[in-house]
């Protein structure tokens, strides 16, 4: 496979995962903003998903419509859903002959929907959840189409490596920012705060089934970092990166493979053999940061060894 | 029959590692009745395989690549050439008859290529200044001599004020440049009065020091003069090029003959140094001359132009591609 093609597939996939993450975050946080008006702030969301300066973020952090508009349809915000989808589509466009026609059409439709001026108008006056749901569904259609139509070759491996790498970083980010918001105070027990955190990454129901004793910050950490049945946990994400990377094993490019395989394997062991206690001993922030940096390094190594073409 | 040992080194040094370099060299002296190559040793860093072929103008061109990462490129050429003095120039046919003859060559291959002249803004001014009409009252040989002297008299020889990318208009404004600019101008003047004229790149091997063009590759022109064939005129030194000029290639202009050019991918900066030394058969030891390298204004590497927004440029190029 062409290095450029692998690169584009990887990035297309990362962007799609990012867009999905943002949309879910927005939906749940919107619900949360309707639940407790006094306390709710969009600050953590803006901090995780945008490059907005502190001042600008403070200014709109209590203006729900402004945040939604900025996060979804703003052309100036390089991390708006519109711009992320545009980039995903640019990548897809340059590898059109390596993805199925169905997948391309699905992404192309997504692009036209999110660019439609109607969407921007509706975001201002209609029920935001309806609009976010339309976009989330379009994303689901993408995942489904990908799963049903794409051949299980090298391209599929790169798509999944991108997807799970992005997801791992995102989960670490969300957890870190949410905890920093409460100064890493593990004694905090207000149900609503943790409920919305879990809801925003679709982990609420699993949490209820796993932990019968109410909300405990430790359990939240355990689920998001260490639960290998939770598809958004860091452990699950890293494990998938590892599995899909294994599929690239071949006689050619052996040296690069072994190097990166080792890197991923080390991250996986690190997470797998962590406990909530060991994480807290190290400090949650330091731990998550370490994971993120390790994942970025994997990204760089892929870049040098598999995607180098310019 | 003078015999020269010429040592020509070209060295590119890159600021960082580069790769995917592709290069073209025009460093193989012409072999004909007046010039014989006894020996040529070419060594290139990385030891690539050089494909040598003849181009449309009969020059030998070498092409090679160097894909691996590297931080310098050295092309080292040592040649031993023997040149022969040319017969004295003749000019005994009536002028009008000679001009008529030249007129007949106009639409013929290969002369046509050496008569087509690119237009430039100051052309009219240049022609006025060179008394075009008066030229036609002389014989073509006299006219060529006179225009060669005109260029020598009116242009100052200054290194570093021009580069391979300087336009004719700019050179005209400066009235200064190096051998390549002198040659380009003389080509314009000769082609305007319908004398076929071609660019020559090579080496000058003076028997006394102080000639212009030593220590580097040199450039002059050849004009097609009835009764004599292609005659070399060196406007930089105001002389007829004979057995002290060693020819590497001929063409319409510099870019047909550019001795060394190349592209690469990688770090932006490069420095180019070139050195040429000549020793004579009659001189001291031939192998031991110290070839002095002097820095040159390096040609731009197409993929690494720093001055502009290369992303934009890249996009624009994609859009420009004609899809018929």
């Amino acid at each position, binding site marked *: 496979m062409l290095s450029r093609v692998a690169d584009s597939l990887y990035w297309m996939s990362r962007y799609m995962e990012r867009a999905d993450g943002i949309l879910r975050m927005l939906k749940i946080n919107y619900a949360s903003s309707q639940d407790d008006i006094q306390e709710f702030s969009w600050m953590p969301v803006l901090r995780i998903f945008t490059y907005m300066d502190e001042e600008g973020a403070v200014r709109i952090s209590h203006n729900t419509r402004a945040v939604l508009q900025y996060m979804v349809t703003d052309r100036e915000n390089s991390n708006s859903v519109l711009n992320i989808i545009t980039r995903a589509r640019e990548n897809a466009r340059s590898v059109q002959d390596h993805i199925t026609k169905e997948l391309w059409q699905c992404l192309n439709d997504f692009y*036209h929907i999110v660019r439609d001026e109607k969407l921007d108008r509706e975001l201002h006056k209609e029920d935001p959840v309806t609009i976010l749901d339309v976009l989330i569904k379009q994303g689901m259609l993408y995942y489904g189409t990908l799963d049903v139509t794409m051949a299980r070759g090298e391209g599929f491996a790169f798509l999944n490596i991108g997807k799970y790498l992005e997801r791992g970083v995102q989960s670490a980010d969300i957890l870190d920012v949410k905890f920093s918001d409460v100064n890493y105070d593990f004694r905090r027990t207000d149900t609503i705060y943790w409920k919305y955190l879990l809801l925003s990454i679709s982990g609420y129901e699993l949490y209820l089934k796993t932990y019968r004793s109410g909300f405990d910050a430790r359990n939240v950490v355990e689920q998001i970092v260490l639960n290998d049945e939770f598809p958004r946990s860091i452990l699950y994400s890293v494990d998938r990166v590892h599995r899909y990377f294994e599929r690239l094993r071949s006689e050619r490019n052996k040296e690069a493979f072994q190097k990166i395989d080792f890197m991923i394997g080390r991250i996986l062991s690190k997470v797998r053999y962590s406990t909530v206690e060991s994480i807290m001993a190290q400090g949650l922030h330091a731990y998550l940061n370490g994971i993120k940096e390790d994942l970025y390094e994997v990204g760089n190594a892929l870049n040098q060894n598999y995607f180098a073409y310019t | 029959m003078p015999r020269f040992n010429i040592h020509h080194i070209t060295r590119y040094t890159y600021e960082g590692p580069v790769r*995917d370099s592709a290069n073209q060299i025009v460093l193989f002296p012409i072999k004909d009745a007046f010039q014989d190559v006894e020996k040529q040793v070419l060594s290139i860093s990385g030891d690539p395989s050089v494909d040598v072929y003849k181009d449309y103008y009969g020059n030998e061109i070498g092409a090679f690549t160097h894909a691996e990462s590297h931080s310098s490129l050295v092309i080292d050429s040592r040649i031993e050439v023997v040149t022969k003095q040319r017969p004295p120039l003749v000019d005994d046919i009536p002028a009008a008859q000679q001009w008529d003859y030249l007129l007949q060559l106009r639409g013929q*291959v290969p002369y046509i290529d050496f008569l087509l002249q690119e237009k430039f803004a100051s052309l009219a001014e240049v022609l006025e200044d060179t008394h075009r009409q008066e030229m036609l009252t002389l014989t073509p040989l006299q006219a060529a001599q006179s225009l060669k002297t005109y260029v020598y008299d009116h242009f100052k020889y200054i290194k570093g004020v021009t580069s391979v990318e300087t336009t004719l208009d700019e050179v005209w404004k400066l009235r200064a440049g190096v051998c390549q600019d002198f040659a380009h101008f003389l080509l314009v003047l000769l082609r305007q009065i319908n004398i076929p004229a071609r660019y020559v790149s090579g080496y000058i091997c003076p028997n006394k020091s102080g000639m212009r063009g030593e220590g580097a590759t040199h450039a002059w022109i050849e004009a097609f003069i009835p009764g004599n064939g292609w005659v070399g005129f060196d406007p930089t030194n105001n002389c007829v090029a004979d057995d002290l000029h060693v020819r590497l290639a001929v063409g319409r202009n510099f870019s047909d003959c550019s001795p060394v050019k190349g592209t690469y991918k990688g770090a932006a900066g490069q420095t180019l140094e070139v050195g040429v030394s000549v020793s004579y058969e009659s001189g001291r030891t031939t192998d031991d001359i110290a070839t002095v390298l002097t820095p040159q204004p390096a040609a731009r590497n197409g993929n690494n132009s720093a001055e502009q927004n290369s992303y934009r*440029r890249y996009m624009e190029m994609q859009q420009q591609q004609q899809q018929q």
Partner: protein
Amino acid sequence: MQTSELLNSYSVDPATWDEMYTDPERTGGSSSVERTLDLVRGQYRPVVDFMQQMSIEELNKKEELAKRLFMSQGITFTVYSSGEGIEKIFPFDIIPRIITATEWKYIEDGIKQRLKALNLFLKDVYNNQFILKDGIVPVEMVYSCPHYLREMHGFHVPHDLYVHIAGIDLIRDHDGTFYILEDNLRTPSGVSYMLENREITKRIFPDLLPSNNVRSVTDYPNILHRNLVSLSPRQTSNPTVVVLTPGIYNSAYFEHTTLARLMGVELVEGRDLVVDNHRVFMKTTAGLQQVDVIYRRVDDEFLDPLVFNPDSMLGVAGIMSAYRKGNVAIVNAIGNGVADDKAIYTYVPAMIRYYLNEEPILKNVPTYQLGHPDEREHVFANMQKMVIKRTNESGGYGMLMGHSASDEEISKYKMEILKDPRQFIAQPIISLSSAPCYMNGKLKPRRVDLRPYALCGPEGIQIVPGGLTRVALREGSLVVNSSQGGGSKDTWVLAG
């Protein structure tokens, strides 16, 4: 729907050949003439019949469906204005343009003959130059053409084939005679529209194609692929063929991906390739892989920054040396521009007589060389009746239509011409035939041209029965280029 409703605003210009109506005398102008099926040419009757059985709503729905299919499949071209790319679909008219078996036979024979001569011309002009020595084509004409590449001189191309893929533009004069308007021998585009338009027709007019005996065009990518494979310099059962695109910002990018996908070959950009030791490789996740055949959609000038434009970021440095050594095949050959130059065009009938000793089947449009003083004078005196074109431009750019230009535009254009007359030609304005288009529930005549696509391989020339019909959608317009408000139609060639 009644025939009259569908046809009653169909008024054919009496001086124009209409593809659907037989007799412009009786159909033109006045609305009192009864428009019946009798006057509709046989080949169009089933389509008109079919449409009559539908309501306007149904037809509008079909048109809407066509638009949606194009948009969602990304069959678009990008127009750049003020930095932002706007994606547009190439407007598609749902009524097919229909060509009879007899007409097609004539076109096919004419194009084959022409391509044979053009290919011989290219070989000659880059080698022995017999045609120049014999004064059939003036030397100046060739040597002043910017696309005549000295670098190609004395070069051996595989099977002596220079033109592998050609798009030949045809128009019809008032009496129905076909004329060659332009030869496109470098990077002819539009074939993806030929293929996609047919797919759309299958969706919007179920069953109509087989019942009309319409010949299939779907073989195009297979023939192309077979030809490309046959050019491989390496004797391997599975040579690496690639399509080289300038990139996603090129207006024809959709076509490049479509062709790569339909042939099942890699779509590459210049930066994916590298030349080492006079061989071309592509950079893959498993290292370098040798490339044997390149179908390139990048202009000559940009193909090799080492030899041509040094600023090119789209090409591959050193590719010419690989080509020269015969280690890679490049399609179309480099330097073909000298044969489709609009000034050289004038000499194509002479080439046919010279090389083939045959009379040209398809006619040229009379053409004036503005580099020639007498002809220039004639053209300047008759500017209103002329279309003036730049010899090296295509796509309708840099063109002046004399009948619709203002005096100021004309005098400005004359100044342009005088700067470098060789770069311009003039042709009398030919009216172009008209064909029915669907417009808000009615059929209306609009001007069309035709571009069939020829594929030349070691085993001969094949022309896929079909092509791209471009249509000037604005009423009265004679310009069919997509950049100038043109659209396209599915083109049916009927089996005998």
